[in-house]
Structures are given as structure tokens and as C-alpha cells.
């Protein structure tokens, strides 16, 4: 094929080249071009073989997963890819400094059976474990040991490690140069096991400011823009020379409530917590006009939903996804019935730089709740200041988004529904607590009978929906803008691969 370079712009840069030190989408996206994982996901979210060609639960032992590895794979430095590399990498990913270790929490031991077989001993039955390893990259053991990379970087030691700036993966591209936050250049890896990609060179360009990013595309300074502001989609779609690819993302946006009888800090009601009342939460949902948000705020680029769970995820059903039509009269009646005929006041905390139009969505909700007498003060902050509020249970009412990398409902339950403990409910900032659900959620982790497990998931969802634990708005829709003549399909986890680019 001809040499094809694409200049690819998005809002931020990969944080590090060390594949196990950050569990963050942008970093993973970049790493997927250099390093590879055992399994991968296609654009529908299905698991696909990558460095592993087969994977299955070991016959007779539901606690062991077996992976058959691809043969003839080479690292960029020419070394052969073997089971030892996988063992080394998985152990590294499970080690203390790694941000990925939570995903491997159920792993007891990783062993190489032969050069191309790896067995992973789990603590108990872990039927969904393969879902967790799509971002666990494989490094070359010898190369890593040569550069003392056994441990993921330790901040307290005050030193950088070799892998932060240098790479040696099996991936389709080799890193040619890199200036953090400025530009990275990748070229196709000659010795890659798969077919040669159409894109032979990638110039990766982080551009923080949205307007500048779009301007760069419009002026022809870049070929591809990720993180396209929704309002610019229409214009780009209609401009000659440009096109837009859109597709659903595996991420939903929701509002979280404060539970418990303790009065809210931000409310004028000082003797009770109005939103602890299910009637009030129902009234709020009835005031919410998801379609209007989709049409005006999101410019049609969202999928309104009645369940905090994207369609990609196991446990999603169309019935759960249904959401009520707004009904202001009924909402007001419910409020009166709950004992708040004149409404009440409350502060809504929202990030303003994390999700697509996050602040505008919250602003819209302020207006909608105003219609039924709930006076909302909007507190808008950068996500770095917003998240601590939620994690430390300091918010009464907040907006948050949630991606589901395992494509399973348990992931949502664990962090958002389970009572807050050391290991669970990290983002359950409203302190919702239902001991019965907690039991069921824990049981999901070890249930091997998939039908029984799915039934249990459905039960949990029924309670979560009836209890109105969270107020989901929509699933995000991703858009990639590019120049005419190329196509990049949308990836559900927003991890587009330049290998999937085609040229006309």
C-alpha cells in the first residue's frame, strides 16, 4: 500500500507510556497501538482474540482460566513473544504500584504451562474475568528486567522509570518520537503478525481547546479529530471535505442523590432529607425531559435512557431502558404528597470539563426542576475538584458519568449501588445502602451458572430502578470528525484504532 500518514487530534495526551501505571481511556487508546492485550473488543463490544487465540475455563476446575497464545509474534526489538512475557506482565499489572490491580483482584496465580499456554488460577469461580483483561498489555520480560521494570513506577521514590518514556510492545506501530502534550509519531511495525494497516504513520496531536481543535481540522492542519463538540457535528457533516462518524459509547450519564434521613446541608428544609423520599425522586424524574436534553443540549447526539446501564452491557433490557414522559402536574402532585408543596432548595454539583456538555446538562436540569418548584443552585467545577466531593460523600446532588469496561452490570453495582465500604461502593457518594442488594451483588462475583447470574442481575436492576437509586439521563454518543476520503469506525469504549482506518 502507499504510505499514508494521518494527523490525529484529540483533547489530551496519553499520560504515560508505562502500560500498567494508569487506568485511563486516553492512555489505553494510545497504548493499544504499541502494546497488545490478550483479548480485544470489536466495535460492537464483543470479545475478540488478539494475543490469545483461544480462552476457556479449565475442564473440571471453574477457578482456572486457560489462554492459548498466538504463535510467531515478535516484539519491536525482535524478541519472541512467549507465555513467560504474559506471566510477567500480568504479575506486574497485579503489583502494588499498578492502577489495574483492581481488575485482577480475583487472580490468585498466573502460570506458564508451555511457551504458548497460560493458566490463571482465580480465588474463586470468576466467569467474567476475560472481560477485565482487555486493557492489560503485555511487555517483554527480558527487556523489562534489563531496564529494571519489575515494578510499576513509584512516585514517592521521586524517580521516573524507563517505561514511562520508552516502549517495546508487539503492537502494530512503533513509537518513533514523542513530546508529551505536543506530538507523538508512530510508524507501522514491519514485523507485526497481522495484515499491514492502511495507515503507515500516525502523528498524534493533543489539542486542549475545543475550538482550536475544530479549527485545526477545518484549516486542514489535522485529518482526524476525536472529542468533537456536539454543536460542531452538524456543521462538519454538512461541510464539503469533512465527514463525521458517530456511534454509541459504553458510558451513561446520571444524577446521584443523597440518601439517609439526615437533613441536606444545602437545602432550606432543615428537619428532613427531601430526596430520601421516593416520591420526591419520582417527581424529579417526571420533571426531567430527557428528549429535550437530547435535542437541544446534545444536538441529537445522545441516547436517552431510563436505566444506568448502557445497551452493550450484560443485564440491559429494553423494558429497563424505558423512561417516563415528563409530567409536571403529576410531579407537583407527588411533591405535595411527599410534604413539599412549595418545593425546596438544593445544590447540584456538576463537573464542567469531563463529559460531553456536562455543565449544560446540569443547567438544563436546574430549569426543569424550577418548573416544579425545586430551586436548584448549580455548583460547577473542574472534574479534579468535583470527583473528591462525590467520593468523600460531600455532595447532596451531583452529575457523574460511568463507563462499563467489563460490559457487565456487576461493575455498575459494585461501585455505584453497593453500600460504601473499603472495597465497594467507591463512587456511591449518596451513601445508598440496601443490605439485601449488597448480598446479591457480592454473590454475582462467584456465580458460575450464567442463567442464574443473569436472573440475579435482573432482580437487582428491578430494585435499583424501583428505588430510583440513580437518575440516568442518557448514554453518550461518540463522534469522530475526519477529512473526506478516510473512515474510522467509532469504538464503544472510545478507543479508536488507527488499524481500522480505511481510505477510499
Amino acid at each position, binding site marked *: 500500500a502507499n504510505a499514508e500518514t494521518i494527523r490525529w487530534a484529540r483533547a489530551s495526551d496519553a499520560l504515560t507510556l508505562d502500560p500498567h501505571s494508569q487506568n485511563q481511556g486516553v492512555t489505553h487508546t494510545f497504548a493499544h497501538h504499541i502494546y497488545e492485550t490478550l483479548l480485544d473488543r470489536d466495535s460492537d463490544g464483543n470479545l475478540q482474540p488478539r494475543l490469545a487465540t483461544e480462552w476457556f475455563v479449565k475442564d473440571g476446575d471453574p477457578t482456572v482460566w486457560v489462554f492459548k497464545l498466538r504463535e510467531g509474534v515478535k516484539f519491536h526489538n525482535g524478541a519472541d513473544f512467549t507465555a513467560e512475557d504474559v506471566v510477567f506482565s500480568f504479575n506486574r499489572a497485579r503489583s502494588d504500584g499498578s492502577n489495574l490491580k483492581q481488575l485482577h483482584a480475583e487472580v490468585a496465580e498466573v502460570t506458564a504451562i508451555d511457551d504458548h499456554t497460560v493458566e490463571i488460577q482465580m480465588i474463586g469461580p470468576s466467569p467474567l474475568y476475560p472481560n477485565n483483561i482487555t486493557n492489560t498489555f503485555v511487555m517483554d520480560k527480558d527487556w523489562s528486567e534489563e531496564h529494571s521494570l519489575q515494578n510499576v513506577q513509584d512516585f514517592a521514590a521521586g524517580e521516573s*522509570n524507563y517505561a514511562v518514556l520508552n516502549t517495546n510492545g508487539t503492537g502494530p506501530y512503533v513509537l518513533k518520537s514523542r513530546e508529551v502534550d505536543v506530538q507523538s509519531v508512530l510508524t507501522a511495525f514491519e514485523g507485526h503478525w497481522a495484515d499491514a494497516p492502511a495507515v503507515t504513520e500516525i502523528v498524534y496531536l493533543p489539542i486542549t481547546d475545543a475550538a482550536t481543535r475544530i479549527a485545526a481540522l477545518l484549516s486542514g492542519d489535522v485529518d482526524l479529530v476525536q472529542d468533537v463538540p456536539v454543536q460542531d457535528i452538524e456543521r462538519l457533516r454538512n461541510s464539503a471535505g469533512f465527514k463525521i462518524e458517530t456511534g454509541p459509547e459504553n458510558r451513561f450519564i446520571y444524577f446521584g442523590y443523597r440518601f439517609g434521613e439526615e437533613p441536606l446541608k444545602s437545602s432550606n428544609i432543615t428537619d428532613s432529607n427531601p430526596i430520601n423520599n421516593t416520591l420526591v425522586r419520582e417527581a424529579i424524574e417526571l420533571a426531567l425531559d430527557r428528549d429535550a436534553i437530547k435535542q437541544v443540549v446534545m444536538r441529537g447526539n445522545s441516547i436517552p435512557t431510563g436505566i444506568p446501564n448502557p445497551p452493550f452491557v450484560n443485564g440491559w433490557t429494553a423494558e429497563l431502558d424505558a423512561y417516563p414522559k415528563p409530567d409536571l402536574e403529576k410531579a407537583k402532585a407527588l411533591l405535595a404528597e411527599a410534604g413539599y408543596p412549595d418545593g425546596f432548595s438544593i445544590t447540584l454539583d456538576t463537573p464542567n470539563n469531563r463529559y460531553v456538555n456536562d455543565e449544560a446538562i446540569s443547567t438544563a436540569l436546574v430549569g426543569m426542576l424550577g418548573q416544579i418548584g425545586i430551586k436548584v443552585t448549580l455548583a460547577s467545577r473542574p472534574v479534579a475538584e468535583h470527583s473528591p466531593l462525590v467520593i468523600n460523600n460531600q455532595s447532596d446532588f451531583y452529575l457523574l458519568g460511568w463507563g462499563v469496561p467489563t460490559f457487565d452490570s456487576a461493575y455498575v453495582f459494585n461501585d455505584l449501588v453497593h453500600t460504601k465500604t473499603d472495597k465497594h461502593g467507591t463512587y456511591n457518594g449518596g451513601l445508598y445502602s440496601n443490605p439485601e442488594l449488597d448480598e446479591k451483588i457480592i454473590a454475582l462475583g462467584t456465580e458460575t451458572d450464567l442463567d442464574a447470574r443473569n436472573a440475579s442481575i435482573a432482580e437487582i436492576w428491578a430494585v435499583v430502578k424501583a428505588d430510583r437509586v440513580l437518575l440516568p439521563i442518557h448514554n453518550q454518543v461518540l463522534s469522530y470528525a475526519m477529512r473526506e476520503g478516510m473512515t474510522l469506525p467509532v469504538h464503544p469504549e472510545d478507543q479508536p484504532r488507527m488499524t481500522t482506518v480505511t481510505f477510499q
Partner: protein
Amino acid sequence: MLAFVVRRLLQSVIVMLVVAFIAFLVFRYVGDPVTSMLGQDSTIADHEELRERLGLNQPFYIQFYHFVTNALQGQFGISYRLQQPVAKLIMERLPATIELALASATIALVGGVVMGIYTALRPRAFTSGVIMTASLIGVSLPTFLIGIGLIYVFAVELKVLPSFGRGTVTDIGWWRTGLLTESGLRSLILPAITLSLFQLTLIMRLVRAEMLEVLRTDYIRFARARGLSTRAINFGHALRNTMVPVITITGLQLGSVIAFAIITETVFQWPGVGSLFVNSVQVVDVPVMAAYLVFVALVFVVINLFVDILYFIVDPRLRDGVRSGK
């Protein structure tokens, strides 16, 4: 002179320490780096553990002590976000910021002085009025809007200049310059103009005011009475005297060009320390933020030193320790 410089340096150290302290104090309150560093797949236990590892659980004064002792050795720690030594990150970004700052300082200085002189020498001319009024636009528009507007016009609509970045760069030792290639120079134009506009207005007005003041002094009148040519009076006598007060303010202004670059660099995706700072603020990358503030203070201190030395060169009265009264 030497004693003076030494004394100045001592003063600067105090200033630096104060700034470092303030910087550190402030950043303790800005968000929480831990949540940004850990993704959503993390537990409360993970948060606590990371906190411990970063030393964020230590008392504030101990953290500050470590910061200062390390900073003295040129170590500002590891960026939480990028996991690289902060000093290295800043050094890498420095050339871009300095080139941008110098370019806009030059525009501001040359433009400001020339227009300031012009409007002072012809205070009643129509063109002076137009310049004076138009220059106010420079301080009546937020920088980000100017930047975006310029991009829209020159990059998107006219497609004559690049919309972002530094263009092609060349390495000279560790210094990465954009000044040697055509694309690098073209990339410099819009951000440099954006950044210079504000300072240009200030310098121009300052020069004008001072020049008008100087033009009414007795020695200028006397120079006229001596029959010197207008040229010699305006450019030989008036200008040099104008420069004495202009130097201080201009010096300070140029120092703030570097710090002011925060917004310009963000808008133009200029790979300098300013955009590094903004990116760091987003995720509360405390080591970078603190180092940046210390860096700005250092720039200020160095420029101030230069300004003082320049005074010595320009004003003979100071050399003899005579107070420069009006």
C-alpha cells in the same frame, strides 16, 4: 554596584521563598490529585494507599520543607500526571515559552515604543487619536477571544497561517527552536500577536504619557532654545529620558508576558510551560503547579535584576548614588 547586586539577590531569595510558600499553601487546597490519578476502577483503600505513597498524609510543613530542600537541588519531584521529573518537563517546555514571550515582547516593545512616540510627538494629529482609540481594543477584549478570532480568520477562513502548535522545530543542543523553519515562524505569528496586544497597549500609553511629560521639561525647552534639531531633541534627549521610568514598568510587563502566556498557549496549543500549567491544574498535578509558580517568580526576580542594572546604565545619577528625584 557589586554590593547592590548582592543585596538584590538576597532580596530575591526572600521573594522566592515567599512565593514558594504561597504556591504550596494554595495548592494544598486545589482539588485532590488522588482522584485524578486513580481511575474509576479504584477502591477507598487504593485512595488511602496512594495518598500515603505521595506523602500527602504528612503534615503540611514537612511537605513544604521537602519541597524547598528538593527545589534547591533543582528537583521539583515527579509530575503526578506525566510521571516524569518536573524539572525535565519544564526545561523541555521552556524554549517554546521563551520564544513566544520574546517574540511578543519584541512586538509589544517595538510597536509600543514607536506608537507611543508617534502619538506623543503629534498629540493632536488625527492618526494619533485613531491609534489611541484603537489600541484600547487591545485591553477591552479578553485574550482568549482575540486568539480564537485570529484563528478563525487567518487559519480557518483565509487558511494562510497554521491554527495551532509550533510547526517544524529544530534542535540546537537541548534547545528546541521554531525560529529556523518557515513553518515555525509562521506558527509564531498569531500567538505572538495575541499575547503582545495587551502589553503593547500598556507600553504605548506609558511611553506616550512619559514622553509628553518629558517634552515639557525645562531641559527640552532649553534644548530647543539651543537650536538643536527636532530630531536630536525628540530622539536624542526626550526618548532617553522617557526610557528611565518606562524601563521599570516595561520590565515588569515583560515578566508577566511569560505568565500571561497561560491563556494564549492554551488557545493555540503552544507547547510551552503555560499550557503545561493549565493541563496540570485540570488534574491537580501539584508538583508541576508549584514548580511553575516558582518559575514565574524566578523570571520576575531575574527581570527585576536586569531592570535595576539597566537603570545604572541609563541614568548616571544612580551611578553616583544620587536619588533620582523629578
